[in-house]
């Protein structure tokens, strides 16, 4: 296989707060290839967004990347000086955020913002930059892009605003786009439109995409590979079909069984007891231990990330579908 567009190894991002060290990301590793979609799934506080911010070098104090490497096409981003970082951010790696109202400047017209983004990385004339901005808007399906360039962010609807954010991410033809819950605030029909744009983008331009979400169903439709995060760590990683059809980590399985549409109507959902632990004082050993039905004494020590033929699972007692079939049959 060719070199990965992005390879993250043993990434640790910790926040040094008054209440103690919050290990928001604690030993995360994955890789994404050109034209592929990696889904990063987890509930609130699982560290999925901080992982995204870390890749872009956007972690603010008291947070700090304390260990690990972030290799973009073989080049370690962690060794870069701030000025070098700026040549990467928005150029080779772009990010799409959950709330486009917060990422677009409300007092500048769309064209001003887009031309600025182009000219920050490329020595081109304003008219060329404007041309590129227009093309990017057209590519994400904004009707009459020429007129819309002169509009302000508040003149767009939520879905259109998110398209503008995607268009800005596309401007410099990045190698990698990180999308952090970009459709969570949108309606179902608008979400489908945005997902369609994202798919088209990967197919046509070979951009690698990291899609951060809490919605397993979106991942099922969009991603090629998936990483499930819990309490700052990846607990399971594999292709979408493997992970969703035969989850091996008890947490992944619990999550899948909690999603209503898979279950029969009116029947109580299988639920995961308890709630996500505080990251300030995680329980000893496996962070999921206290909510897990398979936990034993062994789980009091830290489970390593086992590699089971291309699949990774951080559990001493992974679920094997065959075993269960034998046990019940």
């Amino acid at each position, binding site marked *: 296989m060719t070199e990965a567009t992005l390879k993250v190894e043993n990434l640790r991002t910790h926040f040094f707060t008054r209440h103690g060290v919050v290990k928001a990301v604690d030993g995360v590793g994955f890789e994404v290839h050109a034209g592929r979609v990696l889904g990063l799934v987890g509930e609130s506080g699982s560290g999925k967004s901080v992982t995204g911010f870390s890749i872009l070098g956007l972690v603010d104090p008291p947070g700090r990347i304390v260990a690990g490497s972030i290799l973009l096409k073989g080049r370690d981003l962690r060794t870069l000086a701030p000025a070098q970082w700026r040549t990467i951010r928005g150029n080779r790696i772009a990010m799409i955020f959950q709330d486009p109202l917060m990422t677009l400047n409300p007092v500048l017209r769309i064209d001003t913002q887009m031309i600025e983004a182009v000219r920050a990385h490329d020595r081109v004339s304003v008219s060329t930059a404007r041309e590129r901005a227009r093309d990017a808007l057209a590519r994400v399906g904004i009707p009459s892009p020429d007129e819309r360039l002169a509009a302000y962010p508040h003149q767009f609807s939520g879905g259109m605003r998110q398209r503008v954010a995607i268009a800005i991410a596309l401007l410099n033809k990045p190698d990698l786009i990180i999308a952090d819950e970009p459709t969570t605030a949108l309606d179902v029909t608008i979400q489908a439109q945005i997902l369609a744009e994202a798919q088209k983008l990967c197919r046509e331009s070979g951009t690698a995409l990291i899609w951060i979400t809490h919605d397993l169903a979106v991942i099922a439709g969009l991603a090629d590979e998936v990483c499930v995060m819990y309490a700052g760590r990846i607990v399971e990683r594999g292709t979408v079909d493997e992970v969703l059809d035969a989850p091996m980590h008890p947490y992944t399985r619990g999550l899948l069984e*909690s999603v209503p549409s898979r279950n029969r109507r009116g029947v109580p959902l299988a639920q995961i007891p308890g709630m996500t632990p505080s990251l300030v004082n995680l329980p000893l050993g496996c962070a999921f231990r206290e909510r897990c039905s398979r936990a034993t004494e062994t789980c009091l020590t830290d489970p390593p990330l086992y590699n089971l033929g291309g699949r990774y699972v951080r559990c001493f007692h992974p679920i094997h579908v065959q075993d269960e079939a034998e046990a019940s049959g």
Partner: protein
Amino acid sequence: MSADQAPLLELRGVSKRFVKSLDTAARLANLFGADARDQVVHAVDGVDLAIRQGEVVGLVGESGCGKSTLGRLAVGLHAPTEGRRFWRGEDVATLTPEARRRTQLAIQMIFQDPYASLNPRMRVQDIVGEAPVVHGLVGKDAQRDYVASLLERVGLDASLMRRFPHQFSGGQRARIGIARALAVKPDFLVCDEAVAALDVSIQAQVLNLFIRLREELGLTYLFISHDLGVVQHLSDRVVIMYLGRVVETAPTEVLYAQPNHPYTQALLAEVPRIDARHRRFAAIEGEIPSPLAPPPGCHFHPRCPHAMPRCKIERPALREIAPERFSACHLNDVNDGNDPPPVAAAPDTEVANEA
């Protein structure tokens, strides 16, 4: 619907319009020949809804379709601009004040945001226990025990009742909101996006609580949500709204298996599902029009793949197309309503493989 028994709650032809009047500047401008008018939002436009005792009705729609306004009309938090509201067959507007007060207690609401809907300066004991004491359901001296029993019922530790809302997690706050609604012994709960703000694993816990409470207390729910999966799981019957109007209502299994209205079909086809892998998303065109200026005729016609000239002029009526099934679409006149519209695709066939 059995004719001998009146529905628990019925809304007949209710509309709710929100009017933004002109300010002084605009009125002055009008004197000089400008043509500024009041802005009118038809949040709910002529909706009939009957909910039987013990039924769970799911109300689905996208943002701005008026589903929350309809929920508030059902509870009585908004007075309808037009139309009437019946409780156990009696027009609420004609009830005596005493009977109306009892009706108000019998219908309770659970709000979307478990952070904003609890008073941050009140202890849980007062949040949950205030209403039953005020309404004389329990004495002041029995309040503590009463609150304790309610908290246990919704799965919270009763020893936490002296705490403030900020000391609880999102899922626990949702439970406090439910306990508060249950405190006045209601028959009917309107749940407005009650699980939307929760993580998947916590959402499952709260949904299970709703199912258990319904069995234990014989409650009736109007469950408002944009999440079709949640609604499918919980509801007996589903009502789909689009721009202030009901476009389709049917029993849950039928609606999900054979959606009739083109909007319902599009909605169901576009819901991401776990068993639909690597699908090619093909979204319906366009966006939800502004409720300030809804399109004439059928509100859905600008986005509808089957739109006919008639759809641009005439508003389709919500007609019974099969027992218990209602749909507002002119296509049902074309083919007698026996089949879903011709190009109807069941959601399963939408799972297009990349191959």
